């Protein structure tokens, strides 16, 4: 029998966490499988630590919950054998590990994340590696339903499993309102996102002065779009005003009994989807965990430091917008995640380091098969003749299979064609260095630092039709000057602090320039 959805977990790791109480988790998994069957989804639990389960798919059992290469190989084998439409990783990163990718920003900023915890490799055909550029072409629908990192009591996991199993696919009108929250400094950028998604910004709150004690009515809308500061191992999101004040804008502590069942959250915040152990914060779970524990269906967020301009649109703004737009259009949470990743990468001829990091650091926490919003059907599908044909078996709709084919084709095209900037010791041409110095001076950047990258394209990118485009993909490089603004300028215009000027070169010619405005 064809399998539509696999629940991939490490049973030994769950047993180690919960002991005898694992029986409650198993019962909740069985209830989900039964509920899925009621929706015509064939769901199978696969333990990557089980020799039997892994032998069935032709792979080795994973012997350690922190074995990233083993977990990736197991998921690849499961996907190739069962060809499921949905892959649900069950458990936090201490059950099924994130794949820790090299951080492409680390060469620019030594205080950056040491690596990028990611679930994107599980969504890709490429074999295990630490190179983020290997995972620019995701093709699989993947999400993670997490338990609490470090937990020894399974109530939270049982609860989120039950929420997903009992999900209700609602009319679009039930998702027609939103709760949008921005750091005051980024209001102009967030306003653009909100207007693009919802048509107006009347429900956009800024911090300060708003938050964190939101009323139930304010949090009632089922779409939450959040663009605030976030910190590692912190249960709060933060606002900012220009005088080094970071008030709490939104807090996991204040969420209980205020989240509407079926909410979907997109958070641009740094570390918004970091699955840390609550014991690190006096027992307070992360805000992503809190949302799911309160009945939200999904949380789309970043595992580390995220990027985006203060006034324009880029990186985190885009990938979060794409996710929400897809959800509102009737996609499952997993498909919305995959479409967001693909659309984000497709916007670029090549990804610079911050784009590349963005593409691999955002992930879905939630059951990927959950479809929160009903898709509007074509009128013909509701006609008597079509309904009769479906009932008789004459017509067997294969819409999901066609969508998966499209997604595989799109992801495959991306990994074959999109380039990425990798740190390089290539010599910066003297004229380019002079240009960057002059530009840095004109933009009042102080303590400028220079970095260079080589843009590398996949070998398969030499398609005949690409020979006809005028850009030269054989010798493309990126050079950057990065620094901080002189204080006087920053005080006068805090939203226009320039931190980096980036030039793209083909052979010895500058062909593109841009300034990146920092937060």
């Amino acid at each position, binding site marked *: 029998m064809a399998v539509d959805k696999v629940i991939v977990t490490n049973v030994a790791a769950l047993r180690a966490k919960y002991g005898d109480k694992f029986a409650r988790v198993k019962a909740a998994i069985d209830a989900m499988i039964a509920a899925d069957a009621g929706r015509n989804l064939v769901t199978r639990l696969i333990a990557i630590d089980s020799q039997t389960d892994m032998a069935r798919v032709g792979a080795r059992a994973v012997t350690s919950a922190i074995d990233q290469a083993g977990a990736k190989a197991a998921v690849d084998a499961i996907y190739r054998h069962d060809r499921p439409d949905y892959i649900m990783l069950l458990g936090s990163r201490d059950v099924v590990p994130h794949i820790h990718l090299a951080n492409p920003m680390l060469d*620019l900023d030594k205080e950056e*994340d040491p690596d990028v915890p990611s679930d994107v490799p599980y969504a890709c055909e490429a074999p295990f590696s630490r190179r983020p550029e290997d995972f620019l072409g995701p093709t699989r629908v993947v999400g993670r339903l997490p338990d609490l990192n470090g937990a020894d009591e399974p109530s939270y996991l049982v609860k989120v499993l039950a929420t997903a199993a009992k999900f209700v696919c609602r009319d679009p009108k039930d998702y027609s309102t939103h709760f949008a929250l921005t750091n005051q400094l980024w209001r102009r950028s967030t306003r653009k996102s909100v207007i693009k998604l919802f048509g107006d910004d009347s429900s956009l709150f800024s911090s300060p002065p708003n938050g964190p004690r939101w009323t139930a009515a304010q949090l009632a809308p089922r779409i939450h779009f959040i663009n605030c500061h976030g910190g590692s191992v912190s249960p709060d999101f933060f606002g900012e005003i220009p005088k080094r*004040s*970071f008030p*709490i804008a939104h807090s996991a502590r204040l969420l209980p009994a205020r989240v509407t069942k079926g909410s979907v959250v997109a958070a641009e915040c740094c570390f918004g989807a970091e699955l840390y152990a609550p014991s690190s914060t*006096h027992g307070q779970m992360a805000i992503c965990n809190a949302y799911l524990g309160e009945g939200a269906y999904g949380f789309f967020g970043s595992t580390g430091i*995220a990027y985006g301009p203060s006034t324009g649109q880029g990186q985190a703004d885009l990938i979060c917008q794409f996710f929400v737009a897809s959800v509102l259009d009737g996609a499952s949470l997993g498909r919305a995640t995959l479409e967001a990743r693909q659309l984000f990468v497709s916007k670029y001829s090549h990804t610079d380091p911050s784009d590349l990091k963005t593409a691999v650091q955002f992930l879905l926490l939630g059951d990927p098969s959950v479809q929160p919003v009903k898709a509007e059907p074509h009128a013909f599908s509701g006609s008597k003749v079509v309904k009769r044909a479906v009932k008789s078996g004459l017509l067997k709709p294969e819409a999901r299979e066609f969508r998966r084919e499209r997604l595989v084709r799109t992801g495959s095209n991306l990994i074959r064609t999109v380039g990425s900037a990798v740190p390089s010791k290539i010599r910066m041409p003297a004229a380019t260095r002079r240009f960057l110095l002059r530009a840095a001076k004109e933009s009042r950047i102080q303590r400028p630092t220079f970095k260079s990258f080589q843009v590398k394209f996949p070998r398969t990118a030499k398609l005949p039709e690409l020979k006809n485009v005028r850009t030269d993909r054989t010798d493309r490089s990126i050079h950057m000057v990065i620094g901080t603004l002189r204080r006087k300028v920053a005080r006068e215009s805090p939203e226009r602090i320039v931190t980096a000027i980036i030039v793209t070169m083909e052979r010895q010619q500058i062909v593109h320039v841009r300034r990146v405005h920092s*937060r």
Partner: protein
Amino acid sequence: MVLEGDVVRKRIHLGSKSEHDAAMLVTADGEFKLRVQGGNPFVDPEVEALVGKRIRGEGLVSARQFIMERYEVLRG
């Protein structure tokens, strides 16, 4: 984990969504953004008061941040 070092102020995460001035603990093993467990990760008066001092702290390291459960000032 126990770390010892000097506390300095530095602007970090340039160009990211969390660019800010931070108190950094400079140790023999590298630099870590300094936090106190339960405190505001971006600006915390308790941590700010440690700038310019040498401290020894006990806590956990996550994403190049040292989150202290307790500390002592060695030189102020």
